[in-house]
């Protein structure tokens, strides 16, 4: 039985290959949640933006707010969520893989 995975990524794509690694193993039906320093991946025009385009992506709004990123241009398809919605996502996806 094949299951869907929620991938959480908390490292900046500008300092770490963690997001790149995650993208190697993500499949249709999966989603990515960017949190903590991982939220920098929500910015536009970085090397991994093309690979994020067709993925279901979420980002923790409070982490964007803390980092002054609410006022920056971001990839439009990435949905802002809060921690309550993070919990809901973990119940909707069969598995959670934390990339850190």
């Amino acid at each position, binding site marked *: 039985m*094949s299951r869907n995975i929620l991938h959480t990524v908390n490292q900046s794509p500008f300092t770490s290959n963690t997001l790149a690694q995650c993208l190697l*193993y*993500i499949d249709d039906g999966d989603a990515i949640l960017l949190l903590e320093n991982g939220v920098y991946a929500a910015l536009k025009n970085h090397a991994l933006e093309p690979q994020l385009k067709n993925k279901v992506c979420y980002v923790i709004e409070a982490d964007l707010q803390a980092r002054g990123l609410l006022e920056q241009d971001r990839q439009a398809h990435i949905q802002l969520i809060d921690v309550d919605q993070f919990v809901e996502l973990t119940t909707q996806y069969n598995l959670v*893989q*934390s*990339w850190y």
Partner: protein
Amino acid sequence: MIESKKIGIILRHAPYGNSFAQEALDATLAVGLFGQQLSLIFLGDGIFQLLKHQQASAINQKTFSKQISAFELYDIERIFVCAQSLAHRDISTDSLCIDVTCLAPADIKKIMREQDTLLSF
């Protein structure tokens, strides 16, 4: 009652630079003792844990590869390594200290999804 579960352990960190990989190994053996069906999935720098010829006494640490031979004793047989992670690091399976199943990322994806729970190390 503890139900039997398929537990996937994702191992992504190189050994020796800090204690993380060692502690991941300790956790793996503890979960192995618990009688669940374990799958070990080595990705990225995690593949370096499996290299032959490690001599960690050179830096006053316990040698990883010696402990990894304990996997057999714990009946841990489902050991997967990402072929792309190996190729990217110019390492062949001949250089690894145990028998592994080497899979392309597309097949690693399938193994991950067969699990009931993933432990992320």
